[in-house]
């Protein structure tokens, strides 16, 4: 019996490991490029830090008006929260002061979307990642999963909402520009399909290689994002999360999810088999009942 159990446990372990890793190889690399997602290109060399985007965003989404003295200061990082979906920060870099806008990046394959068990957080076919309060149960798993810490939660409400940039989804399906893009006086924000934006960004880098750092943040980060960034300096200097992986985040759980059906098929059969084979095994019987 002793040997049997030990063997059984090692077989169990091996099966688990091989199922786990085996399925991972099957998990196909699928990058959501078949659909033309809309996105926004943010060029930090053009941004003047006027915070116009912050004000129109608050107005558009019924959030409190930003306080006039709440301005970007280098050295202090302002964060988006449940009262503001986008913020401008300023960083002291090797090329002087550079402004950076922060909001949801609208990943091609968002972690939050795949984390959500009610489909409340979802990637629309147009590109924006939006939140649906009628479905959300407030578990905050999207916040745990998001590599950019984007979704915010109203901790001080009895009817809390998840707050994040939705790329002005309502305006986008009406054919209008997102509020911040429309309001930007410096044309630092450009709206378009992701393909056009990447081409445009590459064109800007090629035309002025001295001005730009040769990288588009968001082209491959987290499997590609809807918001794309151009910068004069390496992105580390601007507080970007540069440790983020280039594969889409949902792939991290695919292996596990693919093993579920096999366990559901194999386990009951194996268990029933063991039960039948040791049914009349009375070796360890010490009279009971």
């Amino acid at each position: 019996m002793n040997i049997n159990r030990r063997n059984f446990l090692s077989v169990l372990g091996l099966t688990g490991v091989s199922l786990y890793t085996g399925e991972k190889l099957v998990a196909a690399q699928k990058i959501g490029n078949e659909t033309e997602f809309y996105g926004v290109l943010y060029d930090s060399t053009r941004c003047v830090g006027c915070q116009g985007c912050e004000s129109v965003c608050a107005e558009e989404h019924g959030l409190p008006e930003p306080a006039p003295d709440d301005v970007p200061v280098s050295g202090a990082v302002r964060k988006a929260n449940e009262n503001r979906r986008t913020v401008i920060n300023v960083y002291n870099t090797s090329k002087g002061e550079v402004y950076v806008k922060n909001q949801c990046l609208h990943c091609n394959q968002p972690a939050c979307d795949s984390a959500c068990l009610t489909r409340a957080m979802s990637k629309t076919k147009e590109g924006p990642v939006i939140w649906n309060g009628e479905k959300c149960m407030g578990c905050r798993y999207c916040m745990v999963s998001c590599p950019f810490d984007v979704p915010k939660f109203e901790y001080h409400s009895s009817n809390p909402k998840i707050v994040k940039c939705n790329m002005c989804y309502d305006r986008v399906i009406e054919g209008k520009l997102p509020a911040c893009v429309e309001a930007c006086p410096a044309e630092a924000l450009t709206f378009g399909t992701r393909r056009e934006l990447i081409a445009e960004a590459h064109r800007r880098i090629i035309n002025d290689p001295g001005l730009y750092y040769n990288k588009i943040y968001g082209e491959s980060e987290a499997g590609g994002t809807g918001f794309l960034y151009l910068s004069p300096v390496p992105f580390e200097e601007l507080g970007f999360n540069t440790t983020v992986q280039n594969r889409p985040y949902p792939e991290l759980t695919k292996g596990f999810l693919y093993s579920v059906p096999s366990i559901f098929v194999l386990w009951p059969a194996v268990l029933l088999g063991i039960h039948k084979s040791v049914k009349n095994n009375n070796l360890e019987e010490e009279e009971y009942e």
Partner: protein
Amino acid sequence: MKKKNMNNQNAVLAKDNDGMPVLKFLAEAIKPKGTFFTPFNMISLPIMVLGFVIIVIRFIKGIGAVTNLTQEVPWGLWIGFDVVTGVAFAGGAYVITFMVYILNMKKYHSIVRVTVLNGFLAYVFYAGALLLDLGRPWNVINPIIGNSFGVSSILFLVAWHFLLYMIAMLIEFSPTIAEWIGNQRARKILSGMTLAAVIFGITLSTLHQSGLGALYLMASEKIHPLWYSEFIPILFFVSSIFAGLSMVIFEGSISQKVFDSQISEKNHRSHDGILHGLSKICTVTLFIYFFLQVLTFVHGKHWDLLNSPMGYWYLTEMIGFVLLPMGLFFYSYRKQNIFLIKLAALITMIGVIINRLNVTVVGFRWDAAVHYFPSWMEIVVTLTVLFVEIWIFRWIVTRLPVLRDSPSWVKKQSSKL
């Protein structure tokens, strides 16, 4: 005619309840038993009252009013301890049912009921504690009733498995309820469903014990690299075996004393033998777990991180709370030392708590400027959940044939089968 029918019905009910009318039976069941002024009651009652007040505040003013959760650390003690750790400890139910009903190890039959009851209550209360942590709990049925299936979500899998496993455990436990109310036919039908429920339950447990670890797979950069790996699900699954069994040893040792009068002389005597068997299994699974941890560590190539405060903490967990209890279990099994078995179980349990909290709370955003530390109110609510569970457990054990032997008609019934 009608009157006769009614009389018949009454007669049936009366017989089923050992000759007691239904109302009297219920009144008898609700009546408190034993002394009220015990130290446990005196400590737990005020905490429970306070806990309920905090829960009311939480629903009026929001989660932020009672917890220290932040936008960066959205899951704290209520998830990391109540749910993730609590469910690991409830793993004893699937391990013991596996041993008894699948491997036919009859030696452990006398602890099946109490273990399943414990597991069931743990799921109801610790998974139920999840509701407190949900911002919009009124939408909790959404993933169940089918208007919005987030099938790509690990949490979807875990939620469904919690629900199904609770039903499976209720079926496993239901013959005890039938014996209590004295319904022979129901007992026969329900005990016929046990094997199916056990097989289903073990399958579900395999998946959601590991699934609780898989929840954190997408937080790959947020968890300290010494605790994050793609093998979290397997580590969580293997550790749930000895976590559950240590809980069985721990709970059994207390029950043997507290519910002394419930337990037959024979079961008292066989308890030491059960503990020896369990300590053997704990030794083996702890070894497998340690081996997997070493593999994971070597794969992760984080040798440099060992020489840091988090590294020392990691080594403490591995040596003090995995290797040490493994050695203790092994030694106590060889020397047949009951005290050391209990000590090893206790250390193992502390180790499991430390491990789960390291993944979910301590190692989560370990590099953040402001660290999350649970508020006293989060701790009080956690204790409240724990105490309510113990109260219900006690209520059931003192009434149903969980620890004590089944009524005499059960033996006749099972010998006929």
